[in-house]
């Protein structure tokens, strides 16, 4: 980053330790007005710590943060900090029961509130930046995308000269993501600096002029994006000892077939020829759900088969997974697991019938944060581990959890470490391990790789494929992340709660999938 103008935000020589763990070491970074800088790195590389430092929430042990050449205000002086830099966090910081205007000015209202002035200023900001949300709307009535706009407007209302976007597309649909890119370009064109944090390298290439890579707390690469390839970034993130990405099915450039697709390719056709048991059969399933309704979906999953379900977020992709897993009720139709009918809306019954469930949001459903790794991993199998009085010792849990945590390369300080202290990717591994623990005959996984870095993503998908191959479990992979679908034997595309089309022969063409999710019939696709 050769500086032509003065840096708006500059950090130099940042050091940060948490106990014995070194989170950041000698990290330097600078952002100029109108620049969009991408920040990438694997889970646990120190991104979150850097975000916290830049947001004025955490004080570095050493090093300086300066804004426009001046030293940054002290940590905790959020009002002055926000004049320079404002963060749009992954988890919404919106109060749902307040109006848009109140949320935009949350925490920065004067003692006496003039409602009219607040609404007018909100409308002015929305107008200036071309956003289209009425100031008086209650935030609970807004979509995820609109909530994010409110958060961006909040940053702009405080006059922030730099906006920090932390995984902004994680919860957005593809179209909404596109519109977000337009907004980011608009911001940078207006002289605002943007720090863009993402797991999606394509996004970084699309909108960032420069990219910085963190690995193990150190800044290992900082360069303009045009001179870099995707593999350059992956190698920088993972380190040299990483096997070349192209040899691995999941990390390979999306849509390219890889000849050594061992898992599904090897077993599934065999299973199909023998007519071996259908593990899941869904007939005419309907459901009303806030996550997208289902209007009559039928599908089957065979033993050892990996079936993908994809579509837009509102198409019912998550709903069908949740209904089959028993996490949500259906309003009609039936679900059979190995021929037995499973009543809807009872997660414990579904689990006993053999349905494993990897929920879409690990924070709300994936684990109990203050309980240890081993306890969370074995939470689904306490009955099997316990003696006839229901007694089970912590040692038994640890023994039972060990092979699973090893298989998923889960990194923790020990089986007793609270899961809440782990990095996001390792938390997701806990959720997956918890599911594998009870030897399900069907695994329902909903967006299992969301918020997970490239290498962990391979590992997670690889372990799902491995389980399907080794145990003959069927996998229903509900995801709007097209690269997840590379491990699938078939992909079913849902549009508005109905099966729109099915892709039966891998490799799946990414463009054809995208076209199908939009509900555009394409004869040539099959």
């Amino acid at each position: 980053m050769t500086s032509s103008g003065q840096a708006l935000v500059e950090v130099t020589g940042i050091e940060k330790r948490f106990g014995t763990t070194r989170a950041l070491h000698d990290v330097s970074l600078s952002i100029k007005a109108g620049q969009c800088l991408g920040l990438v790195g694997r889970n646990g590389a120190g991104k979150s710590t850097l975000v916290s430092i830049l947001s004025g929430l955490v004080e570095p042990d050493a090093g300086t943060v300066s804004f426009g050449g001046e030293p940054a205000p002290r940590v905790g002086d959020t009002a002055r900090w926000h004049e320079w830099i404002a963060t749009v966090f992954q988890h919404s910081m919106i109060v749902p029961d307040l109006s848009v205007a109140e949320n935009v000015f949350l925490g920065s209202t004067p003692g006496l509130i003039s409602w009219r002035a607040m609404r007018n200023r909100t409308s002015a900001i929305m107008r200036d930046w071309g956003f289209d949300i009425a100031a008086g709307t209650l935030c609970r009535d807004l979509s995820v995308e609109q909530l994010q706009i409110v958060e961006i407007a909040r940053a702009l209302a405080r006059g922030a000269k730099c906006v920090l976007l932390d995984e902004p597309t994680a919860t957005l649909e593809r179209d909404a993501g596109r519109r977000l890119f337009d907004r980011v370009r608009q911001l940078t064109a207006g002289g605002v600096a943007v720090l863009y944090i993402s797991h999606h390298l394509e996004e970084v290439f699309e909108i960032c002029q420069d990219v910085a890579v963190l690995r193990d707390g150190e800044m290992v690469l900082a360069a303009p994006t045009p001179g870099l390839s995707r593999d350059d970034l992956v190698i920088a993130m993972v380190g040299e000892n990483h096997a070349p990405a192209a040899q691995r099915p999941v990390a390979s450039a999306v849509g390219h077939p890889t000849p050594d697709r061992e898992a599904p390719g090897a077993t599934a056709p065999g299973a199909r020829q023998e007519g071996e048991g259908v593990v899941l059969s869904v007939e005419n399933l309907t459901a009303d759900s806030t996550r997208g309704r289902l209007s009559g979906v039928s599908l089957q999953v065979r033993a050892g088969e990996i079936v993908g379900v994809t579509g837009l977020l509102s198409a019912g992709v998550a709903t069908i997974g949740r209904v089959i897993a028993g996490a949500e009720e259906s309003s009609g139709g039936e679900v059979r697991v190995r021929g037995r009918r499973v009543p809807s809306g009872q997660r414990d019954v579904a689990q006993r019938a053999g349905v494993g469930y990897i929920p879409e949001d690990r924070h709300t459903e994936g684990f109990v944060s203050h309980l240890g790794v081993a306890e969370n991993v074995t939470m689904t199998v306490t009955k099997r581990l316990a003696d006839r009085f229901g007694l089970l010792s912590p040692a038994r849990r640890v023994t039972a959890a060990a092979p699973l945590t090893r298989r998923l390369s889960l990194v923790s300080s020990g089986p007793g470490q609270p899961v809440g202290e782990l990095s996001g990717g390792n938390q997701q591994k806990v959720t997956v391990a918890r599911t594998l623990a009870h030897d399900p005959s069907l695994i329902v996984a909903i967006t299992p790789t969301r918020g997970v870095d490239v290498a962990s993503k391979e590992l997670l998908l690889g372990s799902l494929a491995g389980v399907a191959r080794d145990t003959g479990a069927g996998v229903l992979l509900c995801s709007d992340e097209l690269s997840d679908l590379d491990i699938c034997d078939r992909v079913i595309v849902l549009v508005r709660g109905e099966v729109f089309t099915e892709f039966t022969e891998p490799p799946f063409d990414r463009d054809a999938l995208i076209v199908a999710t939009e509900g555009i019939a394409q004869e040539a696709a099959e």
Partner: protein
Amino acid sequence: MISRSPTVADGGAGTTPPAASGIGSWFTRSNVGLLREVALLPVLILLIVVGSVTSPAFLTVSNFAGIGQQSAALGVVVVGESLILMIGGMDLSLEGTYGLAPMVAAWLIVPIAAYGEGTDLSPYLGIVVLVAIGAAIGLINGLLIVKGRLNGFIVTLGMTIVLAGLQNGIVKAQTLFNLPPAFGYLGAASIGQLPVSLIVAVIIFVLVGLFLRYQRTGRAIYAVGGNPAAARAAGIKVDRVKIGVYVAGSVLAAIGGLMEAGRVSAVTGQQGYGEGIIFNVFAAAVIGGVSLKGGRGNMIGAASGVILLGIVQNILTLDNVSNYWIEAIDGAVILFALFLARIVGGESTAETS
């Protein structure tokens, strides 16, 4: 794919390499847990020093047996409330159950002359009735809160008033006395210097403590209180665990009430709600580190909370603090203890996260 995956060194912020997962990390982890569990020890020692300095009668076996006997009933209710707090609930009506259950049982047992109902029920059957009443109240609370999706605070507040009203209504605010020895045994008898109620309370604390640590339903209580959605996704029958805990809590409150009735050889209309024991119950649990947000707490903490309150009460009595002032001082000491527990234990009792 699995077999040739290199071990991914996902080190960095918040994690340490797996090599450290041996003795060292076990030590630090369990140390933290242990520290929290004995967090109140220094406070207890301080109180004992204060007690022995201000009164020569304090540091005697008989005084401590007395403290034990007086705290036993409260302690059993605290076990019940702690369980309910740990699933993320709350039950104000335990004080109502603590009064009503022994009242109804005694009413069925004692003769008409002692304001009984006249059925002259066997005291053993009376105890069965007492447990059944506790279970029924807990079941109603649990169903209303869990299945009816009503707010636990308002349900149990309403239940408290109903129970207290019944307690006074059935005997027209009379006091039931002449309790048969078998009914009063649990609260009144002693084995040597040791009160039976204390022995039973200690057994309950130990059994519940072991249950919470080693039994799958006990572990499920932590999971349900810590994150009900995650517990449900892991196949735990969340509703059943919650309702079961409300039932268990009320049964324990009824048993606590039986102890108190035996100790004072009577059941008054004041027992429970009239005395306002629920504040002490919550205070003991929270001082002992049981989280009002659910998911956290253990029986060692709850027990030390009970002991602390018992000792404070005892010191105030021994030091001849005027009866008119004893409540104000007691309340102030409890608030101070809550503050200390927050400092020492690090657990926030605030509602916000």
